[in-house]
């Protein structure tokens, strides 16, 4: 038994930690693209913003899609509620609120991440320092994750935290795919152009999977394999199937602990079953964009149901 407010705090704390890191990863992938392809860099930054779900708010403030503007907006701008700085701040506020539910190690790692990123992101980032800053963000969130997994009891507190992590992660991966779905559509030729290759690598890079892809598939990038990896692979920690495997599992633990199943259980199980039974060919046949759009909708619905069923709101 937890306070509804505590469950809510844990859930959002973890969504925001995940988000803080995802923003850094998106900027990282964008930076890479911009470095390798100077001609249409602004297009790439635009799709980075689309993946971050921040395009509309960005264009209210800026007219140029430059590395400096996008990095500033996604990493340190506190008027952007999803920026890394805002996310870490929100995560820490939630952690403060649910402090009694966290181990000392977990709380301290979040508090230290907040202190060090606040210091680092206090002033505009010099472009030369951007790689260092991105590394630091990933390292801080990795430290949080390490303390969390290493010290937290596997009880309902852990379950609600994980629900936040995986709902956010599934949303993020699906958005990255959806923004670039057109470069993944099967084309007549099996071998992509150089341009396509960069696009594909960028997708993998934004989920930190450009190396592990090669361990699982061929050295060559193939759109069907990339989509398969990010959507259906059970072992890839940022794939949709992986996220839903754990969402279902943690919801099942909660259901067993409390002796009660809710609407969210049915929704998660349904999505998981669909992912398990599906093949990438079926998905492409039915339309990749349509599949992703409906996935994102269902994932949002799951988040709402969890909040309702466990009295978050």
């Amino acid at each position, binding site marked *: *038994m*937890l*306070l*509804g*407010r*505590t*469950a809510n705090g844990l859930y959002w704390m973890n969504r925001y930690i995940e988000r803080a890191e995802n923003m850094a990863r998106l900027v990282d992938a964008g930076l890479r693209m911009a470095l390798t392809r100077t001609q249409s860099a602004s297009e790439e930054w635009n799709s980075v913003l689309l993946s971050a779900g921040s395009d509309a708010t960005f264009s209210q403030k800026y007219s140029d899609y430059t590395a400096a503007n996008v990095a500033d907006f996604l990493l340190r701008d506190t008027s952007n509620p999803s920026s890394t700085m805002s996310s870490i701040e929100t995560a820490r*506020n939630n952690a*403060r*609120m649910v*402090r*009694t539910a966290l181990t*000392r190690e977990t*709380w*301290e790692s979040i*508090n*230290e991440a907040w*202190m060090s990123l606040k210091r680092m992101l206090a002033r505009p980032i010099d472009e030369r320092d951007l790689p260092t800053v991105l590394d630091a963000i990933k390292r801080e969130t990795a430290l949080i994750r390490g303390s969390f997994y290493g010290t937290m009891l596997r009880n*309902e507190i852990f379950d*609600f935290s994980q629900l936040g992590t995986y709902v956010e992660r599934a949303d993020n991966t699906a958005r990255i795919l959806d923004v670039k779905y057109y470069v993944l559509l099967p084309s007549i030729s099996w071998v992509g152009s150089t341009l396509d290759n960069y696009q594909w690598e960028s997708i993998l890079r934004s989920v930190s999977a450009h190396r592990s892809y090669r361990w699982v598939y061929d050295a060559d990038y193939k759109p069907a394999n990339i989509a398969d990896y990010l959507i259906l692979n059970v072992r890839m920690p940022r794939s949709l199937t992986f996220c839903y495997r754990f969402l279902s599992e943690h919801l099942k633990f*909660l259901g067993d602990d*409390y002796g*009660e199943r809710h609407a969210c259980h049915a929704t998660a199980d349904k999505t998981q079953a669909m992912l398990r039974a599906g093949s990438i060919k079926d998905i492409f046949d039915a339309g990749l964009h349509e599949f992703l759009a409906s996935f994102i909708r269902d994932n949002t619905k799951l988040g709402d149901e969890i909040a309702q069923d*466990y*009295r978050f709101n």
Partner: protein
Amino acid sequence: MRLAAFDEMLPEVSGLRRPYSAYDRWLKEQDPARLTEKMQDAERVFRKTGITFAVYGEQEASERLIPFDIVPRIISGNEWRRLTQGIEQRVQALNAFLDDIYHRQEILRAGRVPRELIARNEAFLPEMIGVRPPAGVYTHIIGVDIVRISEDEFYVLEDNARTPSGVSYMLENRETMMQLFPELFQKIKVRPVENYPQLLRQSLAAVRPQSTKGAPTIAVLTPGSFNSAYFEHAFLADQMGVQLVEGQDLRVVDGHVAMRTTEGYKQIDVLYRRVDDSFLDPLTFRPDSALGIPGIMDVYRAGNITIANAPGTGIADDKAIYSYMPEIIEFYTGRKAILGNIPTWRCSEPDSLKYVLEHIDELVIKEVHGSGGYGMLVGPAATKKECETFAKKLAAKPSNYIAQPTLALSTCPILTEKGLAPRHVDLRPYVLVSDRIQIVPGGLTRVALKEGSLVVNSSQGGGTKDTWVLDD
């Protein structure tokens, strides 16, 4: 301003005092550079764990650390025994006074405390008249502020019978000292304070409502994470292993207070509240309060929840009542107060007011209802102009003020860049009341870090020290 103060470690007359002898030997062996390093370590530890407090009215530094000094304040076993006897007596009297004031009011009938002091006092809650709290305890957790002025003279400066704070610093200070100087604790036998949270939990469980079946559910009620003492609220809930709740988590369900959980509403039996009386129940007190629980007072009157401390305990620690404490102690315990009061002029009395106005530059003048060192004047430290301005405020509303002589509070050394230097200190031991009275050996030593300053409040540049009671 410089007062000839009694130094608890190195009094000018007699040299090193005994309680400090083992510590002094250790200190002399230390490399000063290493000590400075340790001081910085301490600050890092505090910032990392997020032991911060909010300062009202300072937007910029919304989270600050209370400075910590690494020289312990040491009290001998004998001194402590004497203090605890006085504190126990005082706490008994406080609870007896509260019970009386909300029932038969015999002390008023006997003329020992003036009736109008109660009737016109905002801290007196008419809603509590005739209400008997579970186990008959009104003030469960008390912080008694004590000052020392010589080898044998201890005085009570203030009783905190509402929601005394600072106990988390007592615990964290000890934790930090043990981390920084483990070898010291092997050399010197210091009585432990670590079990305070367990004692608090047992104490709260012991005063549960009679109707409670099985083990009581206890919760700490906080105004929220933006409150200045939030760290402490979370810390205590955590250490006790109970829920930390806010008003929005609670409501009255079937005649009980219940919290909204992931499995629906769950009954609470004992609420350790860190929310002021006036915010507790918008139906009974301030209607605009979003921090409280509508209807909790009805549940309380029906005897279905313990609220610690009980509503209305403020009438016992009000500064106007304070001056009557010697009479109150004698009235209920039949004995003279073991721990003295500081002589106090009540400005509501014309003779006293006249005296205070004439001697304003010698006195400490406090607001009757103020706390945290706000709204007070330390005459000898104030400029002529400050005294004049304050005199006008005082003359306009005399009943709002009391005055006390400026005492030469004892000093204890702190570590500065130039080595040890004396600074004024006070002491707040924490007392738990249930079917018994328990005092954890130690307390919070607050220290005025500015040379010569007598104001120890953290909001006014005060710091803290670990407080050792020797097991000798």
